[in-house]
């Protein structure tokens, strides 16, 4: 034992674990990680200590080994991936995708763990040096080593496309595998997904559908084809939701639309016997709805459908209004127009979602063809006349209202509304005077509709007619009240006093009334003029009716309802057994044409032959003789002979009406010109023409030549003058 004592103080010893000094520090640490990664890839991760590995990595980075670590990591990952690649490449046929998927899963899981271990590096070295983070690095390496490797890239794409093709052809494929594969691509980055899958997918789809559409269009009817297109669109849509990125949806839809619809649009819509026209004709709502919704996606799709529809309507409309068969029955004519309108209203409502542009096209088509026939105004008025005569006998009040509303739609299309007004007046007059207006309410309702549409002026005269009748009724009552004390075996009269101007003008003709009638009518006239000084009454003998009690030779008694003319003729036979035509003509002074018609209706109409004619021929010559038919029989007590019904006009009548309307238009045109010039003072020729046409449009379409003539007439009458320097300019002369 030594005797020298050692002095021991406390001293601070530096860390024992001075890794720094260990030259093998990096290698040892790396070895740890390297082995750990290997275990991870070998699914042996459970035996590892996360904490230890994390610490190892941490220390490495702390001691400035970040770059080296990163490098080694990269290389290492690559090695593993190359192994995986070999395995994937070796997979046969259908197992290829599975193997790929499996390896991908493994890689992902591995990466997660590796990332966790190396998290410190992620947050420090990588961040400051702007390196790719560990996880992303792993993905990139996967992408480059596997997905884009020469052996795999092509094969992967081909496999995917092959499967999609098979599914399109009807096979069932493994969708979840597809989903995970595309998801893998998406995870690798949207550009990878787009470059490596989406773009080629869209190209291949385009040629697939190009081929399919070509095939189908050769052998399918339009409806069938559209069904197929719809089916494919839905299918592709569903496919995308099942195993592709959402954004691919609209792209593939666009491809299908282009290949199946846009490229064949004209051919489909115009397809003979099955295209749009055929669908319209046969009211194929389902097909039409499908077509409308499919072509929504195509540029000009709807406008094409719309214009084909419009041309078709115009064409059928045109043939309808110019068909001579149709023109024989005005009521039927209008009914067919209403039916057409209803048909298309329905189609547009059901199949075209009440699309406003389609409704507009419908309206302008109707407006176009309805005016091709210049009798349309007359016929529409006749239709209304027919309905108002039948009133609620044929249809309920509501139905009648609906029908009239629909007729008003047709009315709006008319260019010559003033012509309609003239006819409506004529027909209304006949209805009112013959007592054939079935429902006063419906008549009034129609007037209100016209007033709403055209304004007060249009209907004021028509309303005047109603007022006249009411007043006449009161006047007649007053007449009888005033003369109740007089002899009562005089015939009873009911008088309708028509204000000239409200009623359509009728030419008045001669007629010798039987003395009894004459007496009472003059009495009435005196009574009326007694209370209405300064007025003038003219009997309209061509418009009246009479009820006569007749006793025939065979004893039969009847009450005959006849026209005034017929009454005059029949009364003659009270004082003569037989009369020649000439004698009748002289006695009654009725104009020849009317008289002949009158005699024909009394003597030649089966079942109504109250007179006998010799000879029995149709024509009436001067010496033909007439006498009472004593063998006349009828099942009814009251017999109606020769009611006056509003007929469509004969050609000469038509011409006359049109001439009158043209005459009426002249002052209207002049008034418009004066109005315009008064406010503008100076205006050029073309502007006047445009303005006048615009102003008169609610009533009629003025003829430019007529406008010109009116301008010249106004110049002549010094309302206007031409400008001295510019002969195209007109001036208003105050």
């Amino acid at each position: 034992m030594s005797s020298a004592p050692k002095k021991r103080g406390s001293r601070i010893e530096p860390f024992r674990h001075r890794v720094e000094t260990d030259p093998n520090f990096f290698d040892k640490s790396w070895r740890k990680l390297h082995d750990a990664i290997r275990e991870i890839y070998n699914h042996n991760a459970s035996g590892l200590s996360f904490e230890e590995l994390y610490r190892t990595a941490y220390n490495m980075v702390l001691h400035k080994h970040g770059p080296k670590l990163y490098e080694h990591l990269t290389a290492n990952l690559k090695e593993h991936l190359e192994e995986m690649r070999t395995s994937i490449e070796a997979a046969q046929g259908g197992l290829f995708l599975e193997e790929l998927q499996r390896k991908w899963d493994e890689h992902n899981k591995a990466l997660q763990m590796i990332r966790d271990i190396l998290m410190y590096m992620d947050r420090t070295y990588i961040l400051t040096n702007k390196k790719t983070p560990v996880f992303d690095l792993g993905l990139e390496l996967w992408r480059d080593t596997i997905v884009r490797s020469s052996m795999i890239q092509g094969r992967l794409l081909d496999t995917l496309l092959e499967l999609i093709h098979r599914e399109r052809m009807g096979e069932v494929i493994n969708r979840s595998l597809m989903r995970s594969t595309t998801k893998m691509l998406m995870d690798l980055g949207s550009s990878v997904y787009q470059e490596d899958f989406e773009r080629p997918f869209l190209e291949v789809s385009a040629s697939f559908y190009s081929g399919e559409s070509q095939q189908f269009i050769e052998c399918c009817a339009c409806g069938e084809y559209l069904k197929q297109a719809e089916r494919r669109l839905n299918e592709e849509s569903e496919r995308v939701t099942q195993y592709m990125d959402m954004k691919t949806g609209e792209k593939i839809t666009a491809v299908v639309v282009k290949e199946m619809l846009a490229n064949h649009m004209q051919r489909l819509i115009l397809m003979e016997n099955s295209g749009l026209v055929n669908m319209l004709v046969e009211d194929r709502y389902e097909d039409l709805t499908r077509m409308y919704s499919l072509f929504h996606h195509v540029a000009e799709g709807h406008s094409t459908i719309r214009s084909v529809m419009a041309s078709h309507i115009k064409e059928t409309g045109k043939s309808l209004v110019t068909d001579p068969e149709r023109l024989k029955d005005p009521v039927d004519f209008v009914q067919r127009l209403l039916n057409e309108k209803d048909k298309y209203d329905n189609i547009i409502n059901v199949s075209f979602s009440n699309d406003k542009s389609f409704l507009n096209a419908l309206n302008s088509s109707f407006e176009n063809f309805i005016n091709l026939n210049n009798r349309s105004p007359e016929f529409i008025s006749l239709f209304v006349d027919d309905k108002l005569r039948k009133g609620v006998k044929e249809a309920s009040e509501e139905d009648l209202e609906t029908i009239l509303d629909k007729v008003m739609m047709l009315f709006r299309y008319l260019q010559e509304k003033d012509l309609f007004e003239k006819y409506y007046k004529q027909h209304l007059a006949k209805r009112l005077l013959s007592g054939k207006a079935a429902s006063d309410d419906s008549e009034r309702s129609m007037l209100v509709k016209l007033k709403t549409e055209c304004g007060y002026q249009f209907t004021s005269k028509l309303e005047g007619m109603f007022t006249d009748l009411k007043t006449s009724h009161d006047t007649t009552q007053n007449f009888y009240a005033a003369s109740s004390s007089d002899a009562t075996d005089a015939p009873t009269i009911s008088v309708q006093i028509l204000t000239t101007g409200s009623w359509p003008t009728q030419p008045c003709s001669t007629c010798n009334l039987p003395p009894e009638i004459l007496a009472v009518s003059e009495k009435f006239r005196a009574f009326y003029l007694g209370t209405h000084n300064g007025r003038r009454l003219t009997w309209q003998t061509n418009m009246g009716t009479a009820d006569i009690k007749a006793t025939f030779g065979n004893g039969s008694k009847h009450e005959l309802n006849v026209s005034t003319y017929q009454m005059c003729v029949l009364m003659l036979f009270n004082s003569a057994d037989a009369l020649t035509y000439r004698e009748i003509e002289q006695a009654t002074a009725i104009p020849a044409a009317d008289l002949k018609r009158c005699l024909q209706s009394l003597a030649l109409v089966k079942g109504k032959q109250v007179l006998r004619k010799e000879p029995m021929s149709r024509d009436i010559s001067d010496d033909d003789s007439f006498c009472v038919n004593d063998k006349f029989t009828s099942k009814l007590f009251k017999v109606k002979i020769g009611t006056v019904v509003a007929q469509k006009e004969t050609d000469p009548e038509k011409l006359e009406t049109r001439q009158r309307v043209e005459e009426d238009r002249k002052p209207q045109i002049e008034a418009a010109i004066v109005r315009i010039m008064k406010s503008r003072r100076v205006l050029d020729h073309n502007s006047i023409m445009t303005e006048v046409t615009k102003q008169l449009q609610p009533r009629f379409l003025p003829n430019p030549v007529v406008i010109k003539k009116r301008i010249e007439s106004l110049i002549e009458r010094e309302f206007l003058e031409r400008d001295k320097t510019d002969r195209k300019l007109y001036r208003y002369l105050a």
Partner: protein
Amino acid sequence: MLIYKLGKGSREKVQQFMTITGASEKVALQALKASDWHLEGAFDFFYSQPQISAANTRRLEEMYNKYKEPDADMIMVEGVSQLCNDLHVDPQDIVMLVISWHMKAATMCEFTRQEFIGGLQSIGVDSIEKLREKLPSLRAELKDDHKFREIYNFTFNWAREKGQKSLSLETAIGMWQLLFAERQWPLLDHWCEFLQVRHNKTISRDTWTQLLEFVKSIDPQLSNYDEEGAWPYLIDEFVEYLIENGFVQRK
């Protein structure tokens, strides 16, 4: 009186001037003075101012009285006929129209005192002989565009029947033939034919005035005719007529 103060040469010039132009001495002196006693210049001066004369009013009255009706203060058909005779012109000669225009005559074949005398004054003559000599220059006035238009427009009112607003077709055609013979309008015959066949009614003033515009601005092949050109409808119909009958090509 002034003539005494002139030299012989000047006096001769005045004589010459008066003989050629038929103007009065006063007028001759005025014209020669204005042209510095150059005869040519004096003629130019004179012919550009037809109204410079102060013709002898008495002589004019005498002239008037010669032609006027015995029992009315008007020159009527017979007087006009006589006048034409004295002038050695046909009553249908267009120069009569020019003269009537100068006179601002209200109606064809009638002249009031005022019209006759005033007209002759404005022409610058006071005798038949002078008027006769003036005829060529009066005819020449038709060549002037501006004057022609005035004469043309004057014709409408002048040729009308009294109290009528429009011109009868027959008269209008006669007048047009007269007027446009001077102007050489190629479509004249077609126009008259058209009116007789298709129109057969009177002619309004607007149509009359616009026709001249038409003649002046639209070429006979109608290449610059514009349908929207605010022409009277009668002219539009005329164009249609020409096209229908193949006289011009449709554009």
